């Protein structure tokens, strides 16, 4: 065997090649330049045990489990393969007696203080320490002393528990928190044999990404509250799927036992999420299991909604859709197939007014601009961000862009009225006043240093509606200003709900937007309003308009998973099956179509949206031409936009990009007068945890939504003469509310910030959706 190695070392490559020739355990292997030996060995078929190494984080070489021998000038040398780059001619051996001895030695040492509580440990059965103790361990421990003892487990956040006795100090969670999430809230404390992971006093590990540490923990030291003691790994069944909580579309593995969703894990998609999930996306499976789910159709009987049957309810819906003027709102929370079926039904019935967004997004023309993928955005020389706080709304996109800035691949140029999660990673964060974005963008892009930066390489614009209290025109105008200055820039549109792009591509968008639909409804011009997983009263920026509209429409038909304020006023409520209960595909903000998997039986009698459309079509003698997910997908593939799905690419982890027809931005007149010096300009944005259904019905998350406060720059507060923490009266053109005000210098001068759909005062009460901008007056009570 060693003779073979020796001859191969002598070989000199005669052709220029892009790979490096190495030998692993006597086998020749071509490795990628820059690759680490641990990965090259695995590619070559020799798995090297490891605990601290994680391919998405900087190697630290701490656990010493991945020791291998590399032929050196003075004979074989023991190296840690996770920190050794491959080199031409390298000869590595992973199974020599001395390597085995070293690996067994490290494992025995790791197990010395590790409690043998595997039978009651959630990790048991999927535990790298357990697995590698079997595959690479000495088989028996000679440690007769008393093991280390700590209180177990201790909560380090609302979601995560830490058992320091089980911890093997691999630095994965702490590295993740620092390197990947940018929330260095957990760290090593003490030293030597007393080293432990812990939080800082009075500072919990309140990271939006804390669940990832549980997933990457190589032992059962970190456990997540929603899954603790719920199942054994060997009882779990799993399918790969895509998270539709937001529009990033992270790949997930959804796991269930006994027909109940129990856990989501991140799946590593190069194009999208790199294996990470945000905590909301990871833990909101609880809402699918909620007791509050709608289980059977409800029909109005006087002032009450009473349980009914599908045949009665569907008949009533079909009857309502037969005549009069109908509009459809929503559809962005379902699958592409759901949206496609409803769009075809609407086509057949001549329903013109449709909008999957609730006037909190951008005009659909944005999707027809030269579009950037997440990968392109995270590798752009300059990333211009004119968008809501990505950390709050599209958390994993935030991770990707943060990584781009931290690794010095990209510079972020941000325009925002209120500091965002990306502000501290930005090359330049330009404060903008709502309504004046376009001129601020024009001025900034005219600066010499900015021009120079933009000239250095490709530019991607991440664009979305930063504030619900202003017209979309301002964002469109700002985007136009960028594209005028940087014509080659590509656009990554930030959309709010999981499948806005899919719903639009499927045909659920129209020339009439949600504001116009609800205005028509409020004016009594609408007979029937179909809400496809939409709750305008909670989700539409202008709560007053939404309430008036819902009240004025004779027939409100709601398909939803929960009873909401909007569905409560419906004449027919149809229970919809939820994420994990239906099969299909979804389209993320890039236009990437990936699969969504059914893992558990749909709750009660709930049905997928597409089934409802097919059923109603049948009752109205309309032939949609499909009656299953597969036949809907065949029909989708026949359209230009979904044609790329033809090769089955949507079923791969990376999915396939839709073929969006090119469009150009509408011309907008974005004018917003300067506000009076007594007024503050209102900015309303979303936070990760709010009163939305997926948080509100997930017991582990519901407490994380923070009460609404009015955040104002301390200088403005001083000018008004109000102390931070006191109650004030905030008056807009629509309403006057009493709210606690808080000084916060991350809010720009002249701006007041409220959170949308947060517990406490409802920001939507203050918003006039037809106003260009909304100003508020703040007075002491």
């Amino acid at each position, binding site marked *: 065997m060693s003779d073979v190695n020796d001859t191969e070392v002598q070989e000199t490559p005669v052709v220029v090649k892009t790979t490096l020739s190495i030998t692993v355990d006597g086998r020749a292997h071509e490795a990628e330049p820059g690759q680490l030996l641990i990965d090259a060995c695995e590619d070559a078929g020799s798995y090297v045990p490891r605990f601290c190494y994680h391919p998405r984080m900087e190697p*630290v*070489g*701490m*656990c*010493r*489990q991945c*020791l291998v021998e590399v032929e050196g000038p003075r004979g074989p040398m*023991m190296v*840690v393969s996770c*920190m050794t780059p491959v080199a031409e001619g390298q000869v590595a051996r992973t199974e020599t007696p*001395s390597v085995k*001895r*070293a690996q067994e*030695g*490290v494992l*025995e*040492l*790791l197990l*010395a*203080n590790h409690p043998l509580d595997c039978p009651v440990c959630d990790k048991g059965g999927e535990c790298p320490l357990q697995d590698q103790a079997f595959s690479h361990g000495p088989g028996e421990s*000679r*440690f007769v*002393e*008393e093991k280390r*003892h*700590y*209180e177990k487990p201790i909560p380090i956040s609302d979601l995560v528990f830490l058992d*320091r006795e089980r911890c*093997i*100090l691999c630095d994965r969670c702490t590295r993740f928190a620092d390197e990947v999430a940018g929330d260095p809230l957990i*760290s*090593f404390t*003490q*030293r*030597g*044999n*007393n*080293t*432990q992971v812990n939080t800082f006093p009075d500072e919990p590990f309140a990271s939006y990404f804390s669940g990832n540490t549980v997933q990457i923990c190589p032992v059962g030291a970190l456990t997540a509250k929603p899954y603790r003691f719920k199942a054994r790994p060997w009882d779990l069944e799993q399918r790969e799927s895509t998270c539709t909580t937001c529009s990033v579309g992270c790949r997930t593995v959804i796991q269930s036992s006994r027909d109940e969703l129990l856990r989501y894990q991140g799946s590593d998609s190069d194009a999208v999420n790199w294996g990470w999930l945000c905590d909301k996306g990871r833990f909101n499976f609880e809402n699918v299991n909620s007791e509050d789910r709608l289980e059977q159709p409800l029909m109005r009987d006087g002032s009450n909604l009473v349980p009914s049957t599908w045949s009665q309810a569907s008949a009533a819906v079909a009857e309502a859709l037969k005549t009069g003027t109908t509009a459809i709102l929503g559809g962005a929370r379902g699958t592409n197939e759901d949206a496609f079926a409803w769009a075809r039904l609407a086509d057949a019935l001549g329903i013109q007014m449709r909008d999957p967004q609730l006037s909190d997004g951008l005009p659909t023309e944005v999707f027809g601009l030269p579009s950037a993928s997440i990968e392109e955005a995270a590798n752009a020389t300059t990333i211009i961000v004119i968008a809501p706080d990505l950390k709050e709304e599209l958390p994993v996109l935030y991770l990707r862009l943060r990584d781009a800035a931290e690794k010095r691949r990209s510079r972020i140029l941000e325009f925002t009225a209120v500091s965002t999660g990306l502000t501290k990673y930005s090359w330049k964060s330009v404060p903008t006043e709502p309504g004046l974005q376009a001129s601020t963008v024009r001025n900034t892009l005219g600066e010499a240093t900015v021009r120079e930066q933009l000239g250095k390489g490709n530019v991607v614009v991440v664009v979305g509606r930063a504030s619900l209290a202003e017209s979309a025109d301002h964002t469109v105008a700002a985007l136009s200003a960028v594209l005028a200055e940087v014509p080659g820039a590509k656009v990554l549109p930030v959309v709010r709900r999981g499948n806005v792009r899919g719903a639009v591509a499927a045909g659920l968008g129209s020339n009439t937007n949600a504001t116009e639909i609800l205005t028509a409804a409020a004016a009594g011009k609408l007979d029937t309003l179909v809400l496809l997983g939409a709750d305008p009263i909670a989700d539409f920026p202008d709560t007053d308009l939404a309430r008036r509209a819902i009240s004025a429409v004779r027939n409100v038909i709601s398909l939803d998973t929960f009873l909401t304020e909007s569905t409560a006023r419906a004449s027919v409520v149809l229970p919809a099956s939820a994420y994990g209960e239906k099969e299909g595909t979804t389209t993320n903000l890039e236009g990437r179509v990936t699969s969504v998997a059914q893992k558990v039986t749909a709750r009660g009698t709930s049905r997928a949206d597409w089934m409802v459309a097919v059923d109603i079509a049948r009752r109205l003698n309309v032939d949609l031409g499909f009656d299953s997910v597969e036949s809907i997908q065949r029909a989708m593939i026949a359209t230009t936009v979904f044609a790329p799905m033809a090769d089955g690419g949507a079923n791969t982890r990376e999915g396939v990009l839709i073929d969006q027809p090119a469009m150009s931005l509408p011309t907008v007149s974005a004018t917003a007068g300067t506000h009076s010096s007594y007024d503050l300009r209102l900015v309303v944005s979303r936070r990760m945890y709010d009163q939305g259904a997926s948080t509100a019905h997930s017991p582990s998350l519901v407490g994380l939504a923070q009460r609404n406060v009015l955040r104002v720059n301390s200088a403005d507060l001083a000018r008004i003469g109000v102390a931070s923490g006191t109650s004030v009266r905030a008056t807009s053109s629509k309403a006057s509310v009493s709210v606690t005000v808080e000084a916060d210098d991350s809010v720009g001068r002249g701006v007041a910030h409220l959170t949308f759909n947060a517990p406490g005062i409802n920001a939507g009460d203050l918003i006039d959706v037809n106003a260009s901008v909304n100003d508020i007056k703040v007075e002491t009570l």
Partner: protein
Amino acid sequence: MSDNTTANYSLGGQVPTGPKILTSRWESADGHTYDGYVRTGGYTALRKALTTMSPAQVHDEVKASEMQGRGGAGFPAGTKWGFLPADVHPRYLVINGDESEPGTYKDRLLMEKDPHQLIEGIIIACYAFGAAQAFLYVRGEMALAQERLAQALNDAYANNLVGKRICGTDFSVDITLTWGAGAYIVGEETALIESLEGERGMPRLKPPFFPASKGLYMQPTIVNNVETLSNLPYIVNQGGTSFKDLGGATSSGMRIFAVSGHVNKPGVFEVPNGITTFRMLFEAPEYCGGVRSDRKVKAFIPGGASAMWFFDEHLDLPLDKPTVDQAGSMLGSGAIVVMDETTDMVKACWRVVRFFARESCGKCTPCREGTTWLERILHRILTGNGRREDLDLLFEVSESISPGLAWPPRQTTICPLGPSAVSPIASAVNRFRHEFEHYIEHGRAIAGVEYVPMHAGSSHGAHAHV
């Protein structure tokens, strides 16, 4: 070899002598002050270097001196400076004043008694390899050294010997003082750099983090020991060759050794490097003046707690790096601990291992878990709970930290701290196995050793369970 080296000398006044380079001001009451330093020739080397020599000339003198670094590894200082990549700036000088190994206290005295000499050396070094910023990292517990260095640095700044445009030339250097926070591991150069950056003192992996290429703030960095730099004024004034000639063929200059343990006069002694023998150092009246009560030497640690132990057959070896290396140990940082024939070797072994177990930083598994396990086995033996198989187990666990138990040690760890804990075990168990076996069989030491109470507990018992 030892016979040849020592043949020209006999004890009783006949020991090799040389000029006091490093310790010349130690007896003087004001040697640590600016006035005292200048009065005795201080800062003349700095003026000479800055005004009459090019940086390359200074570097050449240091190369010619063949001075081995005095921090422990003994790597030639001039060669080390040469590892800096050309034209990469900024580059830094970091001075390792985190002397914390048991029995090592020479740098502390250099900083307390002659702080200006160190400062002068620092600036000369910075001039030689083009650093504009130096960081002097002093062990946290050394209060007097910190006080005197701070005063000295203020005086040096006030006299334009540090800072902008030193001595009217266009050469400028700033020196930043940093106090450690009480971790032995920070004496390891990459851990020291981490600590300087405000991180936990944990070593970095070499490769890729060799300080000369990726050091402090990922910039090229030279880490030099206090004694190494304190030699520079002499080298500049007298020339590298004259420095070299003070020592033996393979060890140049004068060198200071800190001797502790069972000798009559423990202390720090400056001796010609490479020609003085251990026996001379222990027995000569001008040095330690013999072993206490005229007892025999049972064992001695020749170069710090991490070194393999020497025994009476090594007494005539010269204090010469290559000779000691070849004999299976090291001179390290020049800390010599003498143990006489009444020493309980099991207890001595445990005390040294306990030090390393307590000082392990916890970063890598073999050291974090292994050193503590070794300490607890030894503690068990000492408290009468030893088992026959424990001696093999000590070697087995040691093997997991330092494969082959070879010298110089191989390591499964990131830095040499882990293997350091193996040295006392390999030394004591191999040589005095019967003492360990006696403990295991009878629960107590062999007859004839001095009883020292174990007032401090095992590293396990010493920390509270949380």
